[in-house]
């Protein structure tokens, strides 16, 4: 865990409301694991006051990447940063996805909705290095939500796209696409990230197919360090239901431990 107060942005890319920043932060990059996240200070002033949690989208040598959608003032300010600017980053925070030795030779589904693809790119890359085969599912409302399309297509991985309006890939929900695929193939695991409703439905599907899965959850965060207890959510752990800290006890949790907000 490091606070790099002067991490330098080396590259920026954007697609509509989606942005990708590449940032030089060698200490953080060295420790980063897929599913972990950063706490980024978006303003040097007091508005917004708190850092913003963003998944580590990729690591390349001393550099890390973040991929995010502008959803409010904090992400808007971040989106305005240009290459050469410094940002104050804390990380890597939390516990990431479980990459198990037995994944070797197996297919692993990585299912992301919109900005939810952020942590999955990193996990897919790591899966490859351990000899597993990532299968990407990438859903959005419309083509412009599939901001990472080209980047993903360049990897050579199998990618399944869906859009609600059919403007690209399968017309419908990404969960339907996963469900269909599960009729034909037997992945060893599923990693998911995206809107709550999407993940809840995915969890159901996984349970029906006895497919073990992990999801990366979100919550408003104070510290990102496990110190403030502001980010909690009800989690089933060892039979008990408790408020656990998303930042420290997560953000990645096994599907069976999560209580979905619809529950």
């Amino acid at each position, binding site marked *: 865990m490091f606070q790099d*107060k002067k991490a330098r942005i080396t590259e920026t890319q954007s697609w509509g409301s989606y942005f990708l920043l590449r940032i030089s932060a060698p200490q953080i990059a060295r420790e980063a694991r897929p599913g972990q996240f950063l706490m980024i200070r978006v303003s040097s002033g007091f508005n917004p006051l708190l850092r913003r949690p963003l998944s580590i989208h990729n690591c390349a040598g001393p550099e890390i990447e973040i991929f995010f959608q502008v959803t409010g003032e904090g992400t808007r300010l971040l989106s305005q940063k240009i290459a050469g600017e410094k940002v104050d980053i804390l990380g890597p925070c939390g516990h990431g996805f479980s990459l198990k030795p037995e994944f070797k030779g197996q297919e692993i589904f990585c299912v992301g909705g919109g900005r939810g693809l952020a942590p999955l790119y990193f996990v897919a890359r790591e899966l490859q290095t351990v000899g597993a085969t990532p299968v990407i599912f990438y859903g959005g409302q419309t083509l412009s939500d599939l901001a990472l399309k080209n980047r993903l297509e360049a990897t050579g991985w199998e990618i399944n796209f869906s859009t609600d309006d059919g403007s690209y890939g399968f017309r419908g929900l990404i969960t339907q696409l996963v469900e269909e695929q599960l009729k034909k193939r037997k992945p060893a695991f599923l990693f998911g990230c995206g809107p709550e409703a999407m993940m809840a439905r995915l969890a159901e599907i996984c349970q029906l197919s006895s497919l073990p899965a992990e999801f990366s959850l979100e919550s408003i965060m*104070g510290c990102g360090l496990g110190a403030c207890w502001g980010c909690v959510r009800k989690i089933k752990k060892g039979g008990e239901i408790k408020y656990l800290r998303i930042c420290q006890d997560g953000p990645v949790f096994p599907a069976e431990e999560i209580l979905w907000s619809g529950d």
Partner: protein
Amino acid sequence: MVDLSSDLGFLRLKNPVIAASGTFGYGLEFQPLYDLSQLGGLVVKGLYFKPREGNPPPRLAETPCGLINSIGLQGIGVEAFCQEVLPKLALLETAIIANVCGEEEEEYARVAEYLSRHQGLAALELNISCPNVRAGGKCPAQDPEATYRTVKRVKQVSPLPLITKLSPNVTDITAVALAAEEAGSEAVSLVNTFLALAIDLESRKPKLGNVLGGLSGPAIKPLALRMVFEVARQVKIPVIGLGGIFSYQDALEFMVAGASAVEVGTANFVNPLACPEIIKGLEDWAESHGLNRLSEIVGSLKV
């Protein structure tokens, strides 16, 4: 070399900067980022006797220059604290202070008494001012008499020096401070958070699961500073000031207003290195102003 130490009488801090309760976890969460022995002291998260579930989320909401929280003191309870956390904290070369909570007077006493039986604590901070627990009801720090009773009761059972933490949600904070002093408190710390509400307009629901919460951060600094100034002129015991301290300048302002030491809360979230940076800033400032002892400035406001 400037002498940064802060002598509270019952306790000598190596410097006046203390990490504030509830914003610094059980202390160890910041250990990966810097050596905690740099701190003047640290106050751990509020402790009830038993483990507590805390309030329903969302528990945080941002406001202009501020943060509202309604954690509701989720925590592990004194037993787990003394077994699992305190032994590790005791190894640090800094003053470890426990934040004592209670549903009612007797619980405060039980927590204080339990903690006093263990090694490693430099003082207790009596949290009679948390706005996040009693729905609609008052906390003891909103009433001089309740403050007096609670302090008195805790002093009966615990030999540890006591810092009574005051609530800003009162008409006259000096009356409460005087009550704490009179009951034997060795110091007062102020302020805890201001009771606040944030609303999500589209859903027409409160932003916090608990409806109300406590406001902290830069927004409250001028209010906290006023209260520290008022209290420091009335009591003889040392005053520990807090509320929106984000920089060494903020810390100095509280000291000039009369605080012998300061606590840093919300700033730890925004800048996890806030405490060591403030300590460094105080040192440089004192040096550049030719002070031998930083404590010379305490209460030096020219009015």
